[in-house]
């Protein structure tokens, strides 16, 4: 494991801890207004300054980490879950069924994804749940395709035939014989897809179509900061840095994991 992977996992671990322990760590509540210190620059009292309502930026970012990470990680986990089941079934059953299932995937793939995420978010109501569902609905297809490819390869191995000959059920073969062999790829994919989801969520929230107030993610904080960028650049700088370092860390972690779990494909890129 190289240094960048180590630093990244350390950073992500601390971030996760901060998000989970937000109420105990944040110096202020995320909506508490300090009306004497409106639009304060970073200082001793408010480490990262305050916004136009006098709310502490650091505290809002700590609470925002909850939203950003929750949406990013769990929508990817759910997409991974759906995509894995779908892809495995499609490849394992094969034939006409496989064809039909893959046509569905092709159609979802052809949609302009960010636009679809926006429309679904608006449909579901602009909140954490809406963005979460929109991201899941759009991203499971990538995973379904990947898993299908892997399962198609694995199911031709003689040991699968042997398992069949020994009388193993299809269910058992999929779960006990095939699944462990794609687990590595799934972990790597998870690490590469989470930043994609975080990026999509923050972009949506930035243009005002994602998470709606009073809930706030790093994207909504950056959006607030954008309106005051000329004179108070720190308001957009800190949330942007949080998004940037989180995505960077997930990408580094993914590369480290790929080298470790899936050396075959790591060589290729």
């Amino acid at each position, binding site marked *: 494991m190289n240094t960048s992977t180590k630093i990244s996992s350390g950073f992500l671990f601390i971030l996760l801890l901060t998000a989970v322990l937000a109420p105990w760590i944040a110096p202020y509540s995320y909506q508490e207004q300090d009306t004497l210190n409106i639009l304060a620059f970073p200082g001793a009292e408010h480490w990262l300054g305050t916004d136009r309502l006098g709310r502490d930026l650091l505290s809002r970012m700590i609470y925002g980490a909850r939203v950003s990470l929750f949406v990013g990680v769990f929508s990817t986990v759910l997409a991974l879950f759906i995509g894995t089941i779908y892809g495995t079934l499609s490849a394992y059953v094969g034939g006409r069924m496989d064809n039909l299932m893959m046509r569905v995937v092709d159609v979802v793939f052809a949609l302009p994804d*960010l636009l679809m995420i926006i429309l679904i978010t608006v449909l579901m109501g602009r909140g954490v749940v809406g963005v979460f569902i929109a991201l899941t609905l759009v991203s499971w297809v990538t995973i379904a395709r990947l898993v299908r490819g892997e399962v198609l390869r694995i199911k031709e191995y003689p040991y699968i035939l042997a398992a069949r000959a020994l009388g193993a059920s299809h269910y058992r073969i999929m779960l006990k014989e095939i699944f462990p062999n794609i687990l590595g790829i799934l972990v790597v994919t998870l690490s590469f897809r989470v930043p994609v989801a975080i990026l999509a969520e923050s972009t949506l929230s930035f243009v005002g*179509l994602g998470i709606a107030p009073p809930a706030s993610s790093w994207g909504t904080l950056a959006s607030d900061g954008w309106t005051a960028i000329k004179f108070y650049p720190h308001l957009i700088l800190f949330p942007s840095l949080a998004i940037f370092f989180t995505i960077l860390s997930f990408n580094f972690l993914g590369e480290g994991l790929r080298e470790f779990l899936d050396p075959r494909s790591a060589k290729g890129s």
Partner: protein
Amino acid sequence: MFMLRFFLRRVLLGIPVLITVATLTFLIMHLVPGGPFDSDKILPPEIIANIEAKYHLDEPIEIQYLLYMKQLLQGDLGPSYKYIGRDVSDILRDTFPVSFTLGMCAVLIVLGLGVPAGVISAYWKNSLLDRSILLFAAMGISVPSFVLGAVSVWIFSHQWHLLPPALWEGPRYMILPAFALGAGFAGYIARLTRTTVLDVLGSDYIRTARAKGLSEFSILLRHVLKNSMYPIVSVMGPLTAGLITGSFVIEFIFSIPGMGRFFITAVTNRDYPLIMGVTLVYAVLIVIANIVVDMIYGWLDPRVSVK
């Protein structure tokens, strides 16, 4: 002839995709609670009824769908609900060239920065230069375009007053938005180029070319680069699609009067025909980008059968 048949086939295959996009968008849009004419100002019910009758919003959804599709087949995208008196095709005619120019500038940035960086990185493998390029590429991949946009506005417009922070009134206005949109993808292309160039540099015919005494420059240009283009071309399709759909954030930041900015307001306004129009144009662009890329691919590498 072969190319032509391939082209026609792909165009025909694109049609069901577009119909599906239209249908899904229509469904999602109409499932959203609330309609385009809910406003804070309370209108008398008769007026609402009149407006809804004018746009057929009082019909059952399946009738509305059939009406819309019929209209669409005739090439009519309908009137905008919010920009009264303007047709959607009218708005698209004004905004599409802007978004298209922005997208093409971004593609230039992606290739212009990414490919040379990747070649340099591979040629001087493991040098300090290579490491810095790799670091920059990793950063580029991880930075959201709106962050890049905001930071570059702050530095180049607010601090140094070099470039305009917004609007779209000439070449000078294009630099920052195109950079913000393309830089991330450039990082991706740089990495990809580095990998493939490294592969090619290790092959036998490069050794032969060196043995023949060709200059390093001509080896790089004629032998290495040409043979490294395939993987790059093959990702250009999805990449262009990403640039096109990702441009709405950049248009939002820089107040560029393109399709993306209209899409954002159309979604907030529930301007159904405008949402449909923009989504369809995006979908058509994505389909075309993929066809063009596949054709270039077939032209670059005759071994790839254009099937």
